[in-house]
């Protein structure tokens, strides 16, 4: 039972992980991240890479929506911007993949700032709808600016090369995606210990008061959009090297809804919420596939039911979590932690 934490050094005071159980869990997590690709078969490696890409995108959205309170349904469009930038650079310039991915994030951030401009005029639901409009307009550009984006056929991306080795198998791609994802989540955790992060939280809670306190809304709202879009661009860039093709249909509007659902289910406004939400929402359709396979002896044509069932479960998850557990899985985890913190006493 933890009664109090007495910090004796500045280092301990500034640490991200303060308690012994947290540190142990983090070590276990990192160890399993390192060991995972060796024990997984190719399909689970594929899923792991996909989950990590979604974690980066969801964390970005969480910064914008969960911490700054600006609802955005355009995250998929920013991922597409990052992916197309990477694909275009790969086709035209042949620059190394890390440079491509960073530039993808940069271009996405720039577009994010443009899309964020309405946030100064409108709030809440109106802003969400403005981001929907922006994502449709971006989709139109991707589909019709044929000279750059290849129109509906899209662009093929050659494999990322590191020191002459092509990153082709999922095992290899994992070692690109995993460190990036870990870094991005760490950066987010640190962001919210700085004054920028605190400004974001202030804007979320009451932006008029924040302005009264001297936080320039223009600068910080646009910064939030930029950071979230940067994350989305990086996720999109990794996606481009993962799937090796980018088309206008790669990032449909449904992906934006998926990411928003992921952070709602995981817990808006918490770092771990975005991570858990992304993992949960990416793996649930796969779990459903197993359930449908298991049911198929009794129910012929079960394969055709998989897609509608996934849609229903997706919607039901969103509704269920919002009605019963609005703060998401992160809250459930906190409850469990609180229970063990005062164990054997009752909460």
């Amino acid at each position, binding site marked *: 039972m933890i009664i109090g934490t007495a910090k004796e050094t500045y280092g301990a005071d500034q640490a991200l992980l303060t308690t012994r159980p947290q540190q142990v869990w983090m070590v276990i997590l990192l160890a399993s991240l390192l060991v995972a690709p060796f024990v997984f078969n190719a399909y689970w490696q594929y899923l792991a890479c996909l989950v990590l890409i979604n974690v980066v995108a969801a964390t970005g959205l969480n910064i914008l*929506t969960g911490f700054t309170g600006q*609802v955005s349904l355009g995250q998929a469009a920013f991922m597409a911007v990052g992916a197309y930038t990477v694909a275009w650079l790969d086709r035209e310039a042949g620059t190394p993949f890390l440079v491509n991915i960073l530039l993808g994030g940069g271009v996405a951030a720039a577009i994010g700032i443009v899309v964020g401009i*309405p946030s100064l*005029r*409108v709030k*809440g*639901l*109106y802003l*969400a*709808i*403005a981001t*929907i*409009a*922006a994502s*449709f*307009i971006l989709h*139109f550009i991707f*589909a*019709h600016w044929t000279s750059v984006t290849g129109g509906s056929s899209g662009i093929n991306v050659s494999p990322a090369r590191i020191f002459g080795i092509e990153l082709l198998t999922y095992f290899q791609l994992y070692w690109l995606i995993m460190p990036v994802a870990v870094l991005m989540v760490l950066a987010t955790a640190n962001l919210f210990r700085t004054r920028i992060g605190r400004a974001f939280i202030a804007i979320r809670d*009451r932006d*008029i*008061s924040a302005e009264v306190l001297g936080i320039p809304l223009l600068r910080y709202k646009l910064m939030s959009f930029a950071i979230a879009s940067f994350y989305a661009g990086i996720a999109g860039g990794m996606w481009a090297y993962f799937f090796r093709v980018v088309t206008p249909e790669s990032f449909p509007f449904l992906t934006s*809804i998926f990411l*928003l*659902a992921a952070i*709602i289910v995981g817990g808006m406004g918490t770092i771990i919420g975005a991570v858990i939400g992304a993992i949960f929402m990416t793996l649930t359709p796969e779990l459903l596939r197993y359930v449908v396979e298991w049911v198929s002896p009794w129910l012929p044509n079960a394969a*055709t*039911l998989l*897609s*509608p*069932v*996934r*849609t*229903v*479960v*997706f*919607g*039901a*998850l*969103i*509704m269920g979590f*919002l*009605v019963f557990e*609005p703060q998401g899985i992160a809250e459930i985890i906190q409850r469990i932690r609180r229970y063990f913190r005062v164990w054997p006493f009752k909460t």
Partner: protein
Amino acid sequence: MNELMFFIEVSLAGLGSGALLALTALAFVLIYKATRVINLAVGEIMMLGAYLFMAFTAGMGLSAWIALPLAIAGGALTGAIVERGIIRPMLGESAISTFMVTVGLGSVIVGLVELIWGTEPRSLPAFISSAPVFLGDAYVSRKIVVSFVVASVVIATFLILFRFWRGGVALRATATDQAAAYSCGINVPRVFSIAWTISCGTAAGAGVLLGAIGGLSSAMGAFGLSALVVVIVGGLDSVLGALIAGLCLGLIQSWAGTYLGGEYQSVVTFGLLIIALMIRPYGLFGTHEIERL
């Protein structure tokens, strides 16, 4: 045939589809006026209404005149259940949460429709005769004329209702200030239920019209997004705004589709939305929300 006549025909077609947009926008406005919730599932409820109509006419062989009220009743019932079961517990939560709940609801409805009726596109059995209507020399498809007439009648009815009927006044009262409405003796939960029921019934009816014009598929709900644009441009809580913005958007979509090309329709629609949001964020006729600390 000369350009002017062509232009008039295109405009008439645009007005007709605009009327359908206005009718759908009405469903949005009703719910927002009463409960301050943007129900993004309106498009999916339209789809549900169309599928129910198809089930009643093609599946059970009922005549269109019976199936239509039944489909509307089905939509209304869905609205009532949703309001009671899902929206009522969400009272007091942030608007974003309720918005996302309706997104989830839309997803569930799409999945259920696919499970029950399959995923391929279908067509409704024809219940509106296809004989063309000629206004002077200009041709208008009969289905468009029917939807225009229906939409106008329904919207006019609602405008009158809100002005003169006690229920309409009660709706506006609960929208303005729930606590004050309670203290005036208005049964606020019942107002919510009524608003949702009528709104979803309207959406289901609009869905039948939409299905008659363009066929049924599980992606029909995307029409709701266009209607959302209408609602934002017209003002979230203004019925008149829904009508005018709906007609205008229908016209603009028709002109863009004809003179620029069919693929420009959606980009023009959403570009218009962004412009409207920048110039008049609360819509042409919406009430400016004053935020207090």
